[in-house]
């Protein structure tokens, strides 16, 4: 009967308070964008995943908990995001099965945004993977998780400077308490919908002869596969003798990769 009343409790907890967020859980059909969650083991990827999707995948305080990909979805500002929780890895350089799941998805799954979840208490170790990931994909956001723990350990991080140096947005988070998650969602949305591709820093590879060799292979790749998103990274892998990548080039499978094309066939890992 009374049309004007103070907002009740339901309004305060309503998802729309954080810019039209709806946690879609397992409803992962018809999504507009694919988001990958990558990062070192035990940095809280699954906690971030749960916070975004409203799912309750089991988490545990030990590295290697997530072995297979988990998928979920959320919607924000009318766009639907499918989110893929990848197994945690320390690097993308070796060929262990869990690293392959992560690398194959980053390369062949063609995520629109890759959220790199890093442990703020040991940034250096986490930056190794961050830098490697940035060689594969440019559309990335660094989610600096476990900020509460870093604070308890007396660690402070210059977020703005770090962001400038890496060339990608950096969002401080404490996923367990949900702190920073709304900002992260907003940033994912921005990166996914904006036409601009961030320009992450390139690796300084001061190895004699490498620069020239890379340029030659890169040029060859560009001719064979004009739409290949990261020819330089593929060239580097070829020079290192990476069997999976060599095979993908030989069969031409790598040519199916195009930048910014969501809903590409995802190679099952």
């Amino acid at each position, binding site marked *: 009967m009374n049309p004007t009343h103070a907002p009740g409790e339901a309004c305060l907890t309503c998802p729309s308070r954080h810019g039209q967020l709806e946690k879609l859980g397992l409803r992962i059909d018809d999504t507009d964008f694919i988001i990958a969650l990558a990062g070192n*083991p*035990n940095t809280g990827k699954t906690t971030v995943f749960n916070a975004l999707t409203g799912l*309750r995948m*089991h*988490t*545990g*305080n*030990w*590295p*290697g908990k997530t*072995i*297979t990909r988990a998928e979920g979805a959320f919607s924000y500002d009318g766009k639907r995001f499918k989110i893929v929780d990848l197994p945690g890895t320390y*690097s993308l*350089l070796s060929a262990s099965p*869990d690293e392959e799941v992560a690398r194959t998805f980053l390369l062949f799954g063609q995520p629109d945004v890759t959220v790199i979840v890093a442990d703020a*208490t040991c*940034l*250096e*170790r986490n*930056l*190794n993977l*961050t*830098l*490697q990931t940035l060689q594969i994909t440019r559309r990335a956001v660094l989610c600096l998780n476990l900020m509460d*723990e870093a604070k*308890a*350990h*007396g*660690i*402070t*991080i*210059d977020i703005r*400077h*770090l962001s400038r*140096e890496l060339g990608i947005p950096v969002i401080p988070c404490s996923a367990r308490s949900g702190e920073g998650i709304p900002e992260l969602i907003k940033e994912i949305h921005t990166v996914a919908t904006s036409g601009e591709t961030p320009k992450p820093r390139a*690796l*300084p*590879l*001061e*190895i*004699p*002869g*490498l620069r020239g*060799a890379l340029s*030659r*292979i890169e*040029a*060859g790749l560009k*001719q*064979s*596969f004009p739409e290949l998103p990261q020819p330089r990274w593929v060239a*580097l892998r*070829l*020079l*290192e*003798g990476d069997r999976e990548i*060599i095979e993908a*080039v*030989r069969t*031409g499978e790598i040519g199916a990769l195009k930048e910014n094309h969501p809903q590409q066939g995802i190679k099952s890992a």
Partner: protein
Amino acid sequence: METTTPDHVLKNAEELRWQLPQNLHDRIAESIYGEAARIAAENVTREGQTRRLRWQQRLDRLLTHPLTAFPIMILILGAVLWITITGANVPSGMLANLLIDHGHPLVSDTLTAAHAPEWLRGLLADGVYLATAWVIAVMLPPMAIFFPCFTLLEDFGFLPRVAFNLDRIFQKVGAHGKQALTMTMGLGCNAAGVVATRIIDSPRERLIAIITNNFSLCNGRWPTQILMASIFLGALAPKAWAGTISALAVLAVALLGFGFAMLTSWFLARTVLRGEATSFSLELPPYRPPSFWKTLYTSLIDRTLIVLWRAIVFAAPAGAAIWLCANINLGDQSIAAWFINFTEPLAWLMGLTGVILLAYVVAIPANEIVIPTILMLTVLVTGAGGGAGAGVMFEPDSTDVVRSILHAGGWTTLTAVCLMLFSLCHNPCSTTIYTIYKETRSWKWTAVSTFLPLIIGVALCILTAAIWRMLA
């Protein structure tokens, strides 16, 4: 030469690779690590050692010290078991009273009042309903206590320390240190433990981890252990010590399982799966205070209820199957009676009963339903529990129905001990077997993983029963 086709590119890369430094891979890794170190140094500031870091280091020294690590680990596992056993007693009795003493006559009478034919009443009330009710009464309370305790420890950061401590043993037997993690996963569910072996890179060590995972007592088997220990072994001790004795007995079985896993790994690593042990690095994560209520909630909802649901899903059709087995006659005996009489000699040798062996055949899909199946078969086939034939009547005021049925079924302490051993060492459930096949893609290794523990279990039970009878 212009490089145009993919083959050209590959050939070119092959040639160029020879002109580059031999250790290209390492040099690339080095330059990445150097860059990471530089960026971190520029952006992170750290105030000396905080109090939190100090107590974490102190705790780690205690939990990973060669002298204190193992006693503390065993003490913690024992404490969790003790809390589970003493805590589950009362609610278990209440649930049995509610669902079986009162619920079963109600369902049965309702069906009779609805003029259901006798076979339908038997199938639904004595089969489906009773099996499901047993599962809930027997499994829910221990699971509702055990899982949250375990999850709290896991979230705190205890598991990686366990893996760290056990690594020394695993290395000695020629297995991979990460097997400690997959085995602790197996304490929840062996199928999950088998999938978890993917964290082990070397195929040889991974196979060892898969084959021996079954020696980790899983969800479905903890209740069997806990129930047997509290009814038969705890009862031998004075009342004040019953809980402690039961906990110690279950702890002993769990440790025996670990021993068998080590022994089997050692055997495999020296015979069919010979090879070098690979090294690995394991990060000890910081201790994190678990968010208590959240952990409690998720482990109750996600783990306890999901496992319980799985048990119910398997128990309901199994209940129907058991009732049919017990009520369809071949000649002058029911199918169940044929099987039980046929296997009785072997069962006697193993210190078990034919009913238990039949229960283990029926319960291949899920270990969770072993105890309910045993109870139902005992009631249906031997007519124990006060009723005759397929009639299921219990003393209405008895809160400890399980105990009275099993005693009526002719069980002794030896039966309980052998059942605990057989529950530890027998074939994995069908889900795990299927998972093993999916992970190994080999029928041979699937068969080895299935039959190896079964053979060990049969031998172990026969040996135990023989020694027991010699001494008794």
